[in-house]
């Protein structure tokens, strides 16, 4: 069984290599090859999963050591995999949702001349993401970590001829690199503290190290998580990343890659458990982002950007839960999985809508689409009910658990976090209802574009709708399945530990609270968008609305802090290098050897003879000195 783990990564990697190096011959079959390999990976994952179920909880982890990667004195990095329950959960999510999105893309990208390359990149992403969750040490994880960053870069910028897409891709990679630097420093710290960065030895002896060291490691890991998972303060790239084709937004920027930060923190639980200050930082980041993303989501008219704000916010929930320690890890992952289903479904639904609407993304130009796209409407609607936490659906169970755990953190912190999570739930219900109403209800608001082409909304082909239907099933049932008998918690417990904590409010109160929050949010949105006609152009809005449309000024802040200052700095350095450093070195040399005089005189055409005579001089000097020694 161990040997299958390598194949899990190998299958999509092979696909990427073949598709990207294969040339045009593969244009006609490439997408099928990629989808089959993604599916093969899923089947392998399922085989390993059922094998794992046959063993008891404590002995489920598989290890596979492929080879010694970078053996340097005192430093051992291996290519070795570890498949435990936590990794398994991710493997199934990544390959399952990944395969569905491969299939969906066959239809979505049908008319793109570079479709082969698109599928090559998608396979590359799967391979990198699987490497990330299967690595048994932090350095190999880092390879997957940057690998998914590369795939994300390539896919956001897939339509490179659009300057906005190229800029968004670069921005995503750069912001992520800041996080990556954090991960690198965390690995340096582990290396100097423990002499290794393999999971097992580091995590099992984490408590040997001083709390200061662990806090430092934890904060650096958090920085990494912020980059990859688009958490404040490294959140600014996610909205722009919507420039990528919609299946990419569904797979990478909603269901899988952006949740890597949650994986990292959960995986490093032993470090965070022993570093309370780092945990506090984690919950603060989570809480701030969950509100931040939700507010942004309320103001966007671009359907994908509204969903991107929502993603940010939902991952905020997960990060918050992961920061709670053993009372939250399992719920963070549970919400991650259910979110994977419903958010991927929502994005695919958005893609389906755009597909039928001539790639229009402005929700103010939608309206009443439920009549034209019944399948999309139903699947999107189920995803909508799941994300707002409608009782009985997936999101209800997973989000409810996180809110409960937040209260269970105890003390003032618990109250604050719990309340923030509840407010977040209300805002979620508000902005998602807004999306739902603007898109599928009310009067039709589309109009011909400048060429006079009026969109003719139509349902998407079944190659696109079937994945949406499958994901809708997940959105409805996964949560209940996980909650039944606390099966999900028991499944993860051997890896993440679990404790119930001590909640000051009863579970029933929390559930009632979430339902009230949900009703408030839905009601507010209905009052604002459902009851009266929606203007085609956005009204000016309050100060907060305007700020939220500009992503709460994140880019303005970054621009002022880094871009303006940075370009001024580089420009002045170019000047300094040319005039000052060059001049100074030449000048210093001039005082010794008349260098600058020679440089000036080279213009007169004797440069060559100068150089030769200079070298000749050196030779004579050597000879003379040697002679003198000899005498």
């Amino acid at each position, binding site marked *: 069984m161990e040997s299958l783990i390598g194949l899990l990564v190998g299958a999509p990697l092979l696909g990427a290599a073949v598709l990207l190096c294969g040339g045009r011959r593969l244009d006609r079959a490439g997408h099928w090859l990629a989808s089959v390999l993604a599916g093969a990976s899923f089947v392998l994952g399922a085989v390993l999963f059922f094998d794992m179920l046959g063993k008891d909880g404590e*002995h489920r982890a598989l290890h596979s050591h492929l080879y*010694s*990667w*970078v*053996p*340097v*004195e*005192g*430093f*051992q990095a291996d290519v070795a995999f570890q498949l*435990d329950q936590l990794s398994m959960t991710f493997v199934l999510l990544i390959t399952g949702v990944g395969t569905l999105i491969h299939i969906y893309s066959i239809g979505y990208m049908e008319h793109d001349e570079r479709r082969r390359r698109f599928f090559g990149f998608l396979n590359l992403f799967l391979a990198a993401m699987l490497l990330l969750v299967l690595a048994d040490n932090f350095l190999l994880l880092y390879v997957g970590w*940057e*690998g998914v960053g*590369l795939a994300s*870069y390539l896919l956001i*910028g897939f339509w*490179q*001829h659009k*300057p906005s897409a*190229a800029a968004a891709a*670069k921005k995503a990679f*750069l912001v992520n*690199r800041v996080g990556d*630097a954090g991960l*690198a*420093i965390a*690995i*340096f710290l582990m290396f100097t*503290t*423990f*002499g290794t960065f*393999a999971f097992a*030895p*580091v995590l*099992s002896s984490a408590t*040997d190290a001083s709390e200061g060291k662990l806090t430092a490691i934890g904060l650096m890991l958090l920085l990494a998580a912020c980059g990859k998972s688009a958490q404040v303060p490294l959140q600014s790239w996610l909205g722009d990343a919507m420039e990528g084709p919609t299946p990419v937004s569904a797979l990478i920027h909603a269901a899988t890659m952006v949740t890597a930060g949650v994986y990292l923190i959960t995986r490093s*639980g*032993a470090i965070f458990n*022993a570093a309370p200050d780092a945990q506090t930082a984690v919950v603060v980041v989570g809480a701030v982002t969950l509100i931040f993303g939700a507010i942004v989501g309320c103001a966007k008219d671009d359907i994908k950007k509204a969903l991107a704000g929502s993603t940010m916010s939902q991952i905020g929930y997960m990060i918050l839960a992961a920061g709670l320690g053993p009372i939250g890890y399992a719920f963070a992952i549970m919400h991650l999985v259910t979110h994977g289903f419903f958010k991927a479904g929502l994005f695919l639904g958005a893609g389906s809508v755009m597909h039928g609407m001539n790639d229009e993304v402005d929700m103010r130009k939608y309206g009443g689409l439920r009549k034209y796209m019944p399948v999309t409407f139903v699947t999107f609607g189920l995803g909508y009910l799941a994300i707002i936490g409608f009782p009985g659906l997936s999101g209800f169970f997973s989000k409810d658990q996180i809110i409960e755990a937040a209260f269970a953190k105890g003390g003032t912190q618990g109250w604050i976090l719990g309340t923030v999570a509840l407010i977040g739930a209300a805002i979620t219900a508000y902005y998602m209802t807004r999306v739902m109403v603007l898109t599928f209800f009310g009067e039709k608001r589309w109009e011909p574009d400048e060429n006079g082409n009026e969109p003719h909304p139509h349902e998407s082909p079944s190659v696109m709708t079937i994945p949406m239907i499958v994901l809708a099933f997940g959105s409805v049932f996964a949560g209940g399945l996980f909650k039944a008998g606390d099966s999900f918690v028991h499944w993860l417990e051997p890896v993440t530990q679990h404790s119930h904590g001590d909640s000051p409010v009863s579970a029933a109160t929390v559930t009632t609270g979430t339902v009230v929050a949900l009703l408030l949010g839905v009601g507010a949105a209905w009052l604002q968008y459902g009851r009266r006609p929606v203007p085609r152009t956005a009204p000016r809005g309050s100060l907060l609305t305007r700020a939220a449309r500009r992503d709460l000024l994140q880019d303005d802040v970054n621009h002022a802090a880094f871009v303006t200052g940075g370009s001024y700095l*580089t*420009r002045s*350095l*170019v000047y300094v*290098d040319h005039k000052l*450093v*060059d001049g*100074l*070195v030449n000048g210093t040399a001039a005082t010794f050897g008349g260098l600058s005089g*020679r*440089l000036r005189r*080279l213009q007169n055409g004797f*440069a060559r003879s*100068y*150089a030769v005579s*200079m*070298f000749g001089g*050196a030779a004579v000097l050597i000879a003379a000195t*040697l002679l003198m*020694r*000899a005498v």
Partner: protein
Amino acid sequence: MSFPLLTTTAVVPALGAIATAAVPAARRTAAKWLAFLFSLATLGLAAAVLIRFDPDGARYQLTESHAWIADFGVRYELGADGIGAVMIALTALLIPFIIGAGWNDADPAPGEEEETENKRWRPTQGFFALILAVEAMVIISFAATDVFVFYIFFEAMLIPMYFLIGGFGDRAHAAGEAEGAKQRSYAAVKFLLYNLVGGLIMLAAVIGLFAVTSDQLGEGTFSLQEIARARASGELDIATSTERLLFLGFFFAFAVKAPLWPLHTWLPNAMGESTAPVAVLITAVVDKVGTFAMLRFCLGLFPGASDWATPVVIALALVSIVYGALLAVGQRDIKRLIAYASISHFGFIVLGVFAMTSQGQGGATLYMVFHGISTAALMLVAGFLISRRGSRLIADYGGVQKVAPVLAGTFLVGGLATLSLPGLAPFISEFLVLVGTYSRYPAAGIVATAGIVLAALYVLLLYQRTMTGPVKDEQVRRLPDLRVRELAVVAPLIALLVFLGVFPKPLTEMVDPAVEHTLSDVQKKDPKPQHPTAEQGWFDYKPAAPAEHGGGEHE
């Protein structure tokens, strides 16, 4: 006496240089093929060096030693340690690619053809002969274990390099033909003067070393091994102040060559004005002699002084890393951008050397190799691009990926290697340098880590501005994609970057023992982790069962 493999490895390209230069003017293509075959033969010999080298054997292998100038204790002494062997291999590896990429760079311009037929000046032959001459000298420099032999070739390679920079440039120069020739000439002389000044200062130190050894040992010597032996036995004991002066003399020359801030300003001129293959020759091959010599000579001959100078050198290396990267961001010229990126990378190499840890120095050695390959890939593709459009300015491009996707793709891979993407070889070396630096100097390690963010910035900006977006203009629209010859040059380099990124073990095995020798020269031991986790060796290590993961219990 055993077969003098190292000498042969250097003599073959030297013979090739002579043979190529002798080809008649009309037989240009024959000259190219001749040069290429000689470079392949050299590669074969270098491969033999790698195979014959036993990583677990003596420190210096394949040694040769002959009396040369007996009166001054100069011996023709060669020997390869693991570091030297891989550097020789890198040199021999890159030259065929440089020749292949520069295949048409020295052809007379159309119209000039007739005139040159009858003249004695044969630029094509000269171009390839000079490249082979440089190769021969670089190989001797990597193999020399006698300081004097090293010095001679270290200096002598300036002459062919000077002619390569000054005599051959890009066809179309933005500032016009006459101005272009002027700038080329300026760049060549600047290169020469900087390096000559460095060399002269080193010469004083070389003579000083001779004086010290002849005073103390009765008989002067330049032999590394002899000096090391005498030092170990206590016969040689250089006074602290003398040692420091000698160190500075050597280090200055190497810092010019490397180049280290603030002695770097010749590099952007030289790399900008020369043709792309020559620029690769400068940064990937010739400059490596500087960083290599820091490891072998500065640390090997003057361990105490190296230790003394470390804080300053580390500071300069950090400045190089950040400063080089920031300047790369600000460049408008593709080649100068790559030159400044190289300055940043040389900062990493010097940092690794002077971190004085196994990971730092091992990483620095790998860095020399991997930077050579990655810069070659990036720069050669850039050269192909520049030769198509006849412009080095970034602003003259845009949307190239639309018309030449393979060119754009290979350019991106070269760029990703330059920004040390994991999975490609440079990541390994950069990470080792950083972790090795961090373990001894945490603050320096963190500052250097900023370099990885800046590297992403200059690489992706370059890619965005040249390759993405709408097609810039008609001239760009007509750019052809990579030709077969060009793809044949780039594809193996990319394959090598991937292979060594995934499986660097063959190299680390060569380099590791040599690094341990160097560290014992300077009497440094790696910092120990504060809480080592496992007493047992790594390979016996069995990962703990998952139950123990989060428990926080220590067995």
